[in-house]
């Protein structure tokens, strides 16, 4: 369970140590302050300070096991579901500590899309309508479903088969359905954990186009192992790395052109050029 002691702690702005000038934004939608995450006795992520600016795409890069997924799972309290996970430090969503917000509301405002498409074993329509229904919305469901599917660039392909089971869709379509399902509750942030790693190049391209389109109204944090994808879709990129003790740290954060064009940290350079990882 999340460390309940955090609830009563005051927000220590002085603890935010900018990795570089780009890591300080005026009104970040998400913020991690001195974040440490451990699973049981094993420290997985250490001293992460990062701000996520509104309506931008931020990519998290780094070798496997460096704590990228752990970090984004903290943003919407997904790590609460892991019994042995222990979190210290603060996660702020629009300046509010996420531990002060009901977990269901956090996940309503901060949606998540996973590596493997995970539609519910229901119809396409029911998948998209599920979130609004759970949140007590009974009216305009047809409109919400249509708008969400259109935003996810899936409407044209499924408008005549909304009652069919979502499992009948291709992998790329299922992933766009999962994005539509996330969009149906009108989130402010979408966290994406390697959303294209199980998709073919054309489906990947459509998801990337979608990310770029959505970023005008939604903040997106994407974990990716595909460097070119990070360059194509993101505005800022954060590189994480685990040292010999296997503890993940944020080593560099900056504009995507700088991170992939001329990284300042030698480890980032080695990672993005494929020399480590």
């Amino acid at each position, binding site marked *: 369970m999340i460390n309940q002691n955090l609830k009563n702690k005051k927000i220590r702005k002085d603890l935010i140590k900018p990795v570089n000038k780009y890591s300080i934004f005026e009104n970040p939608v998400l913020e991690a302050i001195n974040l440490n995450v451990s699973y049981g006795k094993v420290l997985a992520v250490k001293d992460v300070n990062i701000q996520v600016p509104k309506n931008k795409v931020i990519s998290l890069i780094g070798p496997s096991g460096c704590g990228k997924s752990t970090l984004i799972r903290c943003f919407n309290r997904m790590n609460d579901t892991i019994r042995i996970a222990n979190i210290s430090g603060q996660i702020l969503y629009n300046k509010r500590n996420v531990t002060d917000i009901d977990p269901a509301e956090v996940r309503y405002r901060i949606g998540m899309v996973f590596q493997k498409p995970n539609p519910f074993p229901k119809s396409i329509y029911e998948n998209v309508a599920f979130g609004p229904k759970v949140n007590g919305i009974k009216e305009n469901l047809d409109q919400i479903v249509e708008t969400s599917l259109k935003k996810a660039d899936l409407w044209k392909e499924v408008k005549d088969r909304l009652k069919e089971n979502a499992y009948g869709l291709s992998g790329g379509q299922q992933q766009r359905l999962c994005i539509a399902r996330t969009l149906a509750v009108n989130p402010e942030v979408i966290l994406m954990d390697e959303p294209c790693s199980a998709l073919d190049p054309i489906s990947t391209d459509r998801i990337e186009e979608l990310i770029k389109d959505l970023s005008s109204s939604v903040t997106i944090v994407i974990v990716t192992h595909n*460097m*070119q994808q990070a*360059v194509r879709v993101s505005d800022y990129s954060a590189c994480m790395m685990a040292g010999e003790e296997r503890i993940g740290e944020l080593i560099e954060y900056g504009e995507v052109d*700088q991170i*992939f*064009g*001329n*990284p300042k940290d030698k480890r*980032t*350079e*080695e990672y*993005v*050029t*494929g*020399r*480590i990882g």
Partner: protein
Amino acid sequence: MSNYHGRKSLDLGLLEIETKTNALNLKVLEAFNETFNSFYEKDLEKSKEIIKKDKFINQFAVEIENKSIDVIRRETPLASDMRKLTSYMFVAQELERIGDYLSGICKINLKIGKEPFITKFEKIPKMEAIAKNMLKDSIKLFSNFPEEKKAMKDAKNIFSQDDEIDHLNSQVQNDLIKRMSRNSKLVEQGTYIIWVAHNLERISDRANNIAERTIYVVTGDSAAIFSYELDE
């Protein structure tokens, strides 16, 4: 190779391009020396040979460009790898153009032929020495990619010679124009010699570009040289 942590295919591609660039460097420096020897000594056969050999310089430049494009396409490089690869293409083009200027000087030599020179060549050898130095230094700088401080120092040293060559070029032009306006028989050769000086001045500009490109590889910003303060 047990401690090797690179990307074999990318590293081999880079090595091949680097080797070709080194070979192109040598060919251009050799052409530079031979061009001026043949010019002062009126060795017309040698000039013809240099003009013919320019096609090999062009060929090398094309090979470097093609190989760089191939590596970029296959390996999707980033950061310093990408900076190097784009710069190898850029520098190959600069060297190819220097080859053209040298070939141009050889063509002027053929046009002047055995006719005695109308000048004692005081300033042009000075320009030649400066341009050659700048070219050698910039090639050395680009071949080594030294750490930032040394790269900046060496690049500034190359740039500092540029004013001198520009000044000498103006002097050559002014002197010859004055003489040509007094004696129309000097116009043809005088114009040719102005072109020789002009080509040397252009070679020094290309050497500057190579140094600037090295700064881009080392720092990620070719304009960084202009704001960098050296600690004396």
